[in-house]
């Protein structure tokens, strides 16, 4: 079996040991995982190959503020193929201040069972938090599409 080509080689991230896992397909088409030093390695590799899940993070402008952004993430991972559909939903968001950390901005996004949550607090009156405003950047804080 080990002479079959390696389908994927990945590092288990469940603990600091970081086993290197070689994943092959056996004669029956089942995944064959080698290199794991504990029982968690096999399900980790199988999920990563067959149904990878990811969290994602971005930021969206807050309504009624000059250039304040609120960063967002998901409350848990979604199937990898849902990344761009979920991003499209998030792109439509224009939350109003105040926003609190952990606030659910979209519940059960696209039926995935996870929520889009704010990851920072935006008080009602915000002065923005950029480090680059000032010299050279002359208040160019709004969306500047194109170049």
């Amino acid at each position, binding site marked *: 079996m080990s002479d079959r080509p390696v389908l994927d080689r990945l590092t288990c991230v469940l603990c600091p040991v970081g086993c290197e896992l070689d994943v092959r397909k056996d004669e029956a088409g089942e995944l064959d995982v080698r290199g794991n030093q504990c029982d968690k390695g096999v399900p980790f590799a199988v999920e990563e190959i067959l149904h990878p899940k990811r969290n994602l993070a971005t930021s969206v402008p807050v309504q009624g503020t000059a250039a304040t952004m609120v960063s967002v993430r998901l409350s848990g991972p979604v199937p990898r193929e849902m990344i761009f559909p979920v991003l499209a939903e998030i792109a439509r968001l224009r939350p109003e201040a105040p926003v609190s*950390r952990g606030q659910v901005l979209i519940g059960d996004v696209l039926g995935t069972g996870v929520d889009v949550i704010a990851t920072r607090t935006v008080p009602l009156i915000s002065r923005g938090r950029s*480090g680059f405003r000032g010299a050279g950047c002359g208040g160019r804080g709004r969306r*500047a599409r194109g170049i």
Partner: protein
Amino acid sequence: MIDTLETHDVVVIGGGPAGLAAALGARRAGAGKVLLVERDRTLGGILNQCVHDGFGLFLYKETISGPEYSERLVEDVVREPIKVETGAMVLDLTPDRVLRINSRSGYRLVRAGAVVLAMGCRERTREMIEIPGTRPAGVFTAGSAQNLVNLQNIRIGNAAVILGSGDIGLIMARRLTFEGVAVKGVFEIMPWASGLERNVRQCLLDFGIPLELRSTVVEIRGRDRVESVVVAKVDGKLMPIPGTESVVPCDTLLLSVGLIPENELSKRAGVALSSLTGGAVVDENCMTSVPGVFSCGNVLHIHDVADWASFEGFAAGESAARYAAGERPAGGTVRIFAGPNVKYALPQLLTAGTAGTEWSFRVARPLRNVQVVVKGKATDKVYARKKFGRLLPSELQKIKVRPAVAEDLEVSCHE
């Protein structure tokens, strides 16, 4: 003049994770008056623009984003009677711990019982790696691009090339992809990625972004705006190989080519720096060569995980509080050297007779089936051994030495 000086037990310079933790550590160890000085308008440092997930696994036992991590630490700080000054810059630090501070309320002198340096680091720029070519708009360091995109909502371009595979560059490859920017590829001069493996997988492989190893950008083209970059393979001496050049059309070049501890103030105070880390030489209490001046976080050495910077901050803050209270540690006399395959080991100094010290170290190249050994430089006595399946230069590792040490040590790695 001197007797009108404002005094504090501990002054912390820098309000990122290390500085916030240092201020908290100082309070926990009993410091009465603690001043935290931050140059930006808000606390939190670079965490505020790191909107991605994956922070806090060790400190908070869950993975959260940078802004959440920052807010949690800030909430702990504001609960304490710590004087926080944002929009304030420390202009000078003397060896006897007098600080010149310029703030919203004006210029003043402050005397500190102990000082914690937590100024963080800066990104290496195009000029520092001397990329030939024209000087058009569209060349950004990865971190400044991250600030523009995540905090200022500015679209930085339409088609990007990323030079260097540091973590911020990898994270930005994904971030730009999310924003609809075409990422043409990541080019890394070394034979291995310099960022964490998880980031290579989740930021590049997931989106089919090519990672070209042993490659670099040899020319930037374009008059007003970047129009293309020329990339080439490099040889074993990292020199471009003639004939391997190819032109990659793009309007944006991101640089993720290393971070440099920001030690301008440390130098003014006379703090001895290490050429291996770019940060201060410290003992097991995070104390520098200048008594009463401590260092932690990215200004001490570059961290890949914010938690380690925070833990270092807690420790440095506690040590600073004890120093301010009059404790005078003997100071490090035992030296610790980086041996074969080790880029650096920290702390570099240890008070003779100390037991139970944990060293941070980084390997010089990827290694497999490694035995890490800490042994006496003169006696060859083995003080600690630890096995690792694999070690990467991108990952800061730790090894604990239980016995008391009274001789110079060497940390080495053997495959």
